[in-house]
C-alpha cells in the first residue's frame, strides 16, 4: 500500500492528480464528469488531453448517469485499448465491480479512482436551483463533509469512501487544506509511483474518522428505514399509495446500473397477454389499473437485483414522478443482502448469492414438518 498526503486545495489537488496521471503518461485517458455545454448539468467525458481535466468535476454535485453504467457501455464489447482512469463515486465503483462479475464490464486496463463522497443533490432540485450557488455549496462540502439538501439516501450512505478503488482519494481525517492519495492495489501503487509518490502516510486519524462516520451512518440508516421511511411504505395500503405516483415508465430500471438486461423481463412478451386475461383479472379485482403490473414490476425487480443493488439513488433521480424508488430498494436490499451477508462490489471473488449455495443453510426459511398433522380426514 502506498499512502501519501497532498497539501493544498482539495478540489484543485484532485484535478491536478488526474491531470498528472494523464500528463505523465501513466494512463492514456480519463473518464470524468464534465459540465455540459449549457453548464446546467454534467456528463461523463472520456478525456485524452491533460489540459481539459482543469474543467472537469471529478466530484460532481449530481449523479446524472451512473458511472458504473458508463464504464459498462465503454467496455461491454471488450477492454479499453488505452489504459484509462475512471473516476467514480463509491456507489458507482461498487456497481462497476458488480458488473465485472456479471461480465458487463471488462476491467482490464482500467484504473479506478474513487473518493470520500459527500453525497449528491437530487437531480431535480439541482436543475431547478441556482447552479452556481449549489456548486459553491457543494465544493464547501468537500471540506466539512456535510451536504445540506443531499439526497435522503446519500445522507444515510454507509459506503462513502473509495476504499475499493485502485486509488482512493481521502478527504476525511486529513488536516484542512490537504488530502490523501491511497493506493490499494498493485496497479494503484504503480500509478502513484509513476507520479513519484511513495511512502506510507499514517492514516490512523483518517481511519478513525471513517469508522465514526460509518458507525453513525449505520445507525441513522437503520433508524431511517425502520422508523421514518419504513412505516410510510410498508403494508399493502401504504405501498400501493406509494406506487400511485408510478407511471410505469420503468425509467428506474433503465438508469439502474445493475439492470443490465437488454430487455427487461417485465417488458418482455411474458407480460403481453390477451384482452380476456386483462378482463379476467379486472373482474377478480373489480377493475384493473392501466398501464398494468406496476407492483409486479417493482417487486419483481427487487427479486432480480436487490442483492446487487448499490443504493446509488440513480433510479429515484430519474423517476419523473417522485416515487421514492431508491429508498424502497435500499430498504428491501438491506434486508435481502443480510440473508447472505452479501455486499455488492465488496469482493470480486464473492459470487452473487443466486449463483452460490451451501448445502446446509437457510433452514429457517423452510416450514418445518415435525409431526404428521391431524387435519387430513382420511388419515392413514
Amino acid at each position, binding site marked *: 500500500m502506498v499512502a501519501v498526503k497532498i497539501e493544498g486545495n482539495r478540489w484543485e489537488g484532485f484535478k491536478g492528480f488526474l491531470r498528472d496521471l494523464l500528463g505523465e503518461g501513466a494512463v492514456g485517458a480519463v*473518464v470524468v464528469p*464534465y459540465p*455540459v*455545454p*449549457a453548464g*446546467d*448539468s454534467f*456528463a*461523463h*467525458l*472520456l*478525456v*485524452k*488531453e491533460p489540459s481539459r481535466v482543469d474543467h472537469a468535476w471529478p466530484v460532481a454535485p449530481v449523479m*446524472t*448517469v451512473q458511472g458504473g*453504467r*458508463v464504464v459498462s*457501455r*465503454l*467496455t461491454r*464489447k*471488450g*477492454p*479499453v*485499448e*488505452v489504459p484509462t482512469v475512471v473516476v467514480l463515486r463509491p456507489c458507482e465503483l461498487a456497481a462497476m465491480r458488480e458488473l465485472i462479475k456479471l461480465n458487463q464490464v471488462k476491467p482490464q486496463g482500467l484504473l479506478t479512482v474513487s473518493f470520500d463522497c459527500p453525497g449528491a443533490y437530487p*437531480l*431535480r432540485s439541482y*436543475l*431547478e436551483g441556482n447552479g452556481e450557488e449549489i456548486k459553491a455549496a457543494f465544493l464547501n462540502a468537500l471540506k466539512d463533509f456535510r451536504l445540506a439538501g443531499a439526497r435522503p439516501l446519500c445522507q444515510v450512505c454507509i459506503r462513502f469512501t473509495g476504499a475499493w478503488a485502485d486509488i482512493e482519494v481521502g478527504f476525511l481525517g486529513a488536516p484542512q487544506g490537504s488530502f490523501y492519495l491511497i493506493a490499494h492495489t498493485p496497479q494503484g501503487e504503480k500509478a502513484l509511483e509513476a507520479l513519484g509518490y511513495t511512502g506510507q502516510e499514517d492514516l490512523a486519524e483518517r481511519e478513525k474518522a471513517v469508522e465514526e462516520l460509518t458507525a453513525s451512518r449505520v445507525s441513522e440508516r437503520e433508524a431511517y428505514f425502520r422508523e421514518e421511511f419504513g412505516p410510510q411504505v410498508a403494508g399493502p395500503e401504504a405501498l400501493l399509495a406509494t406506487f*400511485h405516483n408510478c*407511471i*410505469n*415508465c420503468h*425509467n428506474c430500471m*433503465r*438508469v439502474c446500473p445493475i439492470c443490465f438486461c*437488454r*430487455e427487461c423481463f417485465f417488458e418482455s*412478451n411474458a407480460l*403481453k397477454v390477451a*384482452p*380476456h386475461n386483462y*378482463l379476467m383479472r*379486472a*373482474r377478480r*379485482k*373489480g*377493475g*384493473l*389499473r*392501466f*398501464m*398494468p403490473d406496476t407492483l409486479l414490476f417493482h417487486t419483481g425487480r427487487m427479486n432480480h437485483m436487490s442483492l446487487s443493488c448499490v443504493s446509488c439513488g440513480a433510479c429515484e433521480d*430519474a*423517476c*419523473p*414522478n*417522485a416515487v421514492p424508488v431508491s429508498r424502497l430498494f435500499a430498504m428491501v436490499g438491506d434486508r435481502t443482502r443480510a440473508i447472505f451477508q452479501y455486499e455488492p462490489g465488496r469482493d470480486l471473488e464473492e459470487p452473487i448469492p443466486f449463483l452460490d449455495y451451501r448445502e446446509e443453510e437457510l433452514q429457517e426459511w423452510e416450514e418445518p414438518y415435525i409431526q404428521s398433522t391431524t387435519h387430513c380426514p382420511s388419515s392413514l
Partner: protein
Amino acid sequence: MAKTAEVPQDLESFLVSLLDLGAVEVLFCPKFLSEGKVAHALIPKEGSRKGLAPLFPFMPANGGKAVSQFTLEGPVDRPVAVVLRPCEIRVLVELVKLEQANLDNLYIIGLECGGVYPLEKMTREKGAAHLEAYNQALKEGQVPQGIREVCGACDLFQPMGADVVVSVIGRDRPQLAFLTGKGLELASKVGLETRRGEVFTSQSQALLKTKAANRAQLLSSVKERVKGYQGLLEVFGKCIGCHNCSKVCPICYCKDCFFESATFDYEPISYTQRLEKKGALRVPMDTILFHLGRMTHMATSCVACGMCEDACPMGIPVAQIFKAVGADVQELFEYLPGRGLQEELPLTTYRPVEFTELEE
C-alpha cells in the same frame, strides 16, 4: 350539426349507466387511485365504478397506448367504452395502422380537451388545487394557467374519430354528441333522447384560434432555441440517455428500441479512434443521435401528446421540439397522424411524382 344530448347528471354517471344498462360490458376510463392521482382503469360490469375521473386534467400515461396494450394480442370480444382525450384517440388510430391495437368492439368516447397539467406539477402541488380555476377557464373558453406548454399550443383539442364526443368548453355541463352509428347505438341503449345541435360551442371555436396562434408562436420559438448544433447541445446536452421519452411515447411501439440494440454497443476501437480525433468524447456516445434518430422514426406520427416531456427527468422540452419538427415533416407529407385509418403512414407509401426539388 349532429345528434347531441346533455349529460343527465354528470359525465361519470353517464359512463356508469353505460355499464349498468348493458350498453357496454367494460369501461376503460381514468379513475382516481387516491386524491389527485388517477390512472386509466379497466372496469368490468361487476367492478367498482367509484371515483371515475374522465375529465381530470392529468395524463399519467397516454390512453391510446394503454388501449394498445389492452388490445395488442387481439380484439376484445365484448363491447368496451373507452374514454380518451383527442391526442389519445389519434395515438390509437396510428397504432391501429401499425398493428399495435385493435378497434373491434371499442366505443370511443372522445373528450374535448382543455389540456392537462405537467406530471411534476400535479404530483408536487397536489394538482386538484387548480381544478376550480381550470374548470372556470374552460367554461370561458380560455387556456387554463399552468397546463403543459404543448397543451397550451394544441389546436387539435376537439376530438376526431370518436363515436361520442364530450364537449365541455364553454359549457356548464358537458354535452354529448353522437357522431357515428356506434355512438347512436350507445345513446339508444342508455335511453338518452338526442336532438340536433352543434357539437362544439362558439367559445370552443374561438379557443381554436387562440391556440393556433399559440402553436405558431411555440413552434417558431422552439426552433429558434434548438437551432444548429450549438442550440441542439444547449438543449439536449444534459440528456442522461435514459430514453424515457421513447419509453413513454405511445408512438414508439418497438419492442426493442433500435438505439438500445447491440448495434450501438461499440467495439473498443471505436472509442479509441474517436478519442484520437477529438481529444475528448462524451460517454456513452450517441446522445444526440438517439433524439434525431428517433425523430426520423416517429416524427411523422408524433401527436404531440407531451408524455415525453413529462417523463424527462432532466426537464428537457422534448415534446415541444418534437411537436415543432413533427409539424414540419407532417406538413411535408400532408399527413396528420390519427386523422383517419385510411390515411397511409407517410413512409410506407409514395407518389410516383413528388419531391422533385430533391433531384437535380
